[in-house]
């Protein structure tokens, strides 16, 4: 008998009620490069089973990495002993009831993702950066493929294949002049390594001889890479788990205006090129496209079946194994092109990367974040010179409300720190507070 069914049947026999079994098999390769040379290769293979199980309203998450019948039998005995000591979870209202009819949907998939000429792709990108004037490039090239199988006690038995190509490149002209660009894609067709090299090299070249920035209020243009960090914060804030935990600046704001009318944030698991595209969530409920924020109004929190029942609403198809989570975050593009946004600015800053976003208070949205790589002073619609040693110290709700323009040039990207991908254009935000060290 197939291993998932064996586990499910054995758990059923022991009186477990809701059962979710997620089996993942993955293979991956990575090339790490520094100073234009490859400094490490990485090859990985992993098989894992994650489980969500309940018994008498007691809820448990666990995993299995050995799949022999003997290991499974030992595992089930341990599970029984463990779960009987747990208290009831009165916040738990069950998993999705199948069977479901899923949309005719197939996410983009690159079958030969592990057989590409990796080194040639990487060299192309490095050369594109050097041709732009960079002296040095660092980063990673990564490809992987995975098969996810989902079996539940509620008549769900589905599977999905995924492939991923990722290139992250930081280019330098010297120690103080750098640019970062990356791309993440499910297919080779959309994996523009030339763009990554050119863009990171271009920013590095532009950022030679930065001057110390000055504190004050500025209009800021965020490139897609830095705005993906902020979009991920907004997306995560929309999970009902974050709302309940005090980790959300969107708490108590459902159906209220939380952002400028120019801003819409979509979660679209059925966007076939989205890196986390899936037709089912991790309890088997069919997924669907939804506006988290539409024209500035908070439209929905992200729910699974249990949290939806608690709040007397419908699941949004965002079940993770523990908490609801976004799939593919998409900032709705605007009509203006990226270059045109500069003409709207009298005194501003152009930000090409961010890191170290931390909150003083998630509930109020007070936070700061560090510009990284090329940052540029804008005066009267033009880039004047590169700047350094600044910090954005403001409030997420303030930033969302002050969005003035959204450009028409989306890319799928993710930052090293947040690791949450988003498909986003550039975004212009007015009147944002910039600080710098006082001592």
């Amino acid at each position, binding site marked *: 008998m197939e291993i998932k069914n064996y586990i499910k049947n054995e758990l059923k026999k022991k009186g477990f009620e809701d059962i979710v079994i997620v089996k993942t098999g993955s293979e991956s390769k990575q090339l*790490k490069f*520094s*100073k234009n*040379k*490859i*400094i*490490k*290769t*990485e*090859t*990985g*293979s*992993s*098989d*894992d089973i994650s489980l969500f199980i309940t018994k008498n309203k007691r*809820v448990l*998450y*666990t*995993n299995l*990495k*050995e799949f022999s019948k003997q290991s499974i039998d030992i595992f089930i005995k*341990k599970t029984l002993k*463990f779960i009987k*000591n*747990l*208290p009831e979870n*009165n*916040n738990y209202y069950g998993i999705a009831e199948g069977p479901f009819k899923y949309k005719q949907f197939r996410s983009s998939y690159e079958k030969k993702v592990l057989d590409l000429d990796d*080194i040639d792709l990487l060299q192309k990108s490095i050369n594109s950066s050097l041709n732009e004037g960079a002296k*040095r490039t*660092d*980063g*990673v090239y990564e490809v992987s493929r995975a098969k996810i199988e989902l079996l539940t006690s509620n008549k769900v038995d589905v599977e999905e294949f995924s492939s991923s190509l990722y290139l992250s490149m930081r280019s*330098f002209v010297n120690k103080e002049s*750098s640019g*970062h660009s990356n791309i993440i894609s499910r297919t080779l067709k959309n994996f523009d390594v030339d763009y990554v090299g050119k863009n990171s090299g271009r920013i590095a070249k532009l950022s030679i001889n930065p001057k110390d920035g000055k504190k004050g209020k500025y209009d800021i243009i965020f490139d897609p890479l830095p705005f993906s960090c902020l979009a991920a914060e907004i997306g995560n804030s929309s999970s009902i788990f974050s709302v*309940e*935990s*005090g*980790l959300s600046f969107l708490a108590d704001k459902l159906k209220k205006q939380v952002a400028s009318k120019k801003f819409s944030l979509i979660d679209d698991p059925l966007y076939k090129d989205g890196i986390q595209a899936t037709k089912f969530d991790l309890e088997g409920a069919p997924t669907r496209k939804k506006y988290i924020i539409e024209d500035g109004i908070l439209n929905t929190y992200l729910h699974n079946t249990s949290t939806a029942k608690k709040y007397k609403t419908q699941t949004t198809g965002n079940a993770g194994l523990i908490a609801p989570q976004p799939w593919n975050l998409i900032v709705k593009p605007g009509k203006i092109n990226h270059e045109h946004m500069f003409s709207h600015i009298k005194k501003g800053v152009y930000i090409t990367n961010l*890191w170290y976003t*931390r909150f*003083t*208070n*998630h*509930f109020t949205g*007070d936070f*700061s*974040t*560090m510009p*990284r790589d090329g940052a540029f002073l804008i005066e009267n619609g033009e880039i004047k010179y590169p700047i350094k*040693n600044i*910090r954005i*110290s403001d409030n997420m709700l303030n930033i969302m409300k002050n969005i003035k323009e959204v450009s028409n040039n989306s890319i799928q990207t993710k930052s*090293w720190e947040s*690791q949450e991908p988003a498909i986003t254009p550039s975004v212009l935000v007015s009147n944002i507070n910039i*600080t710098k*060290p*006082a*001592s």
Partner: protein
Amino acid sequence: MDKSLADFALRHLEKKGVSYVEAKLESQEVNEFLLKNSILESSSFSSNSGLGIRYLFNGTLGFLSTNSSEKEKIKRLINKSLILTNKASKYKEDITLSKERSYKRSYKIKQKIKLADISPEEKLKDLVDADKAILDTKVNTPGRYIALSDKISKKYFINSEGTVINSEIPYVDLHYFLTVNENGKSSQRYWEHGETSGWEAVNGWDIPSIMKDEILTIKNNLEKGKKPPKGILDVVIGPQISGIMVHESVGHPYEADRIFGREAAQAGESFLSEDMVGKKVGSEVLTIIDDPTLKSGFGFYLYDDEGVKARKKYLIKNGVITEFLHNRETASRMGIKSNGSSRANNYDKEPIIRMSNTLLEKGDYSEEEMIKDVKSGILMKNFTEWNIDDKRFQQKYVGLDCYLIKNGEIKHPIIKPILEITTPYLWNSIDAVGKNFEGHSAHCGKGEPMQDIPVWHGGASARLKNIRFI
């Protein structure tokens, strides 16, 4: 753990002509409980184990990992990895490793109260009692997120130079995220307590008291706190603040892989350069250590993940840079021996340079003595938000439990003073270091894929002179 898998992998790679190979089997058994607003939101136990292998082939580093226990599968993966590494070696930077002594050792942390002997029910009781202690304060706490976990990490490490290390380290970890509303204002607090220990460490923490103190402190700050003062002030910092400062602006920039640029596209680089050993970077009272051998420290180990013996390191001694954190690769580049700073957070990640227990070493002052000499200043005991740039040159700390100091006396609480400062100014401004000591746990992030690793930071309190607040 089937040790024959690591032995098999090592032999197979030796036959293939690699110049160096190490193999590490690792298993981690983890139990986690999360109580959210009085409800047990999540309970889990998990176990994972697998094999990580690193080798040098044609001067290029190859790393591979798998959780398969089938020798044929492991062999196939090794062969795939060798093909990739061989191709990559045409575009390589020649990697060499420092020559190190080989060891055959076994070590473990003895658990006075074994983690395995504590039932889920008993572990949960600690969380329920913690939540009750918060509710008993009658303070408005709409967000109560409290998590308790334990882990046992077992490793079997071998390399082609004859080193064999067996280790077993237990970890216990409490972390919480609290939201307090008072007077129409709110504050949030995240903190961790962690040790390498059996359950006796958890018993020693007195979690209900920790929670009660946290809540009442925040309430007092929101109720009685005033706006922070401006101008040139002295600042007395407690071990939680000195700890995060030491971690962010000394530990990280002293990681030699950052100095050489290897992590440039990930965790970033360093404002330091390799020729700065011996340079003065702080006041004479400043001594900062990184000591993985510190018993019960969350970053404890005796041999690193390259099989190098761990030791206490003085990163800064009396204001002068003494050494950086090294693995065998960066040590070789500088023509020295590794100081045993290489770690991976599991079998499936490459070992990279990490901090362990990074601390501001004790001085001669009591906190009271430091405060007594301050005419106008701030006592910062802990913090909320913080960040730092990726060269570790300029940083920000937003204080939480903070007080005004006037003419040597602690006055009223102040609300969220912001210290935004450069690293050179910070470490040169210290004129007094406390004789107290606290170690605080954290999970530090680095690498790609991201590896969070347990560390301690902390040490003594200290006094910073002439800091500008605007």
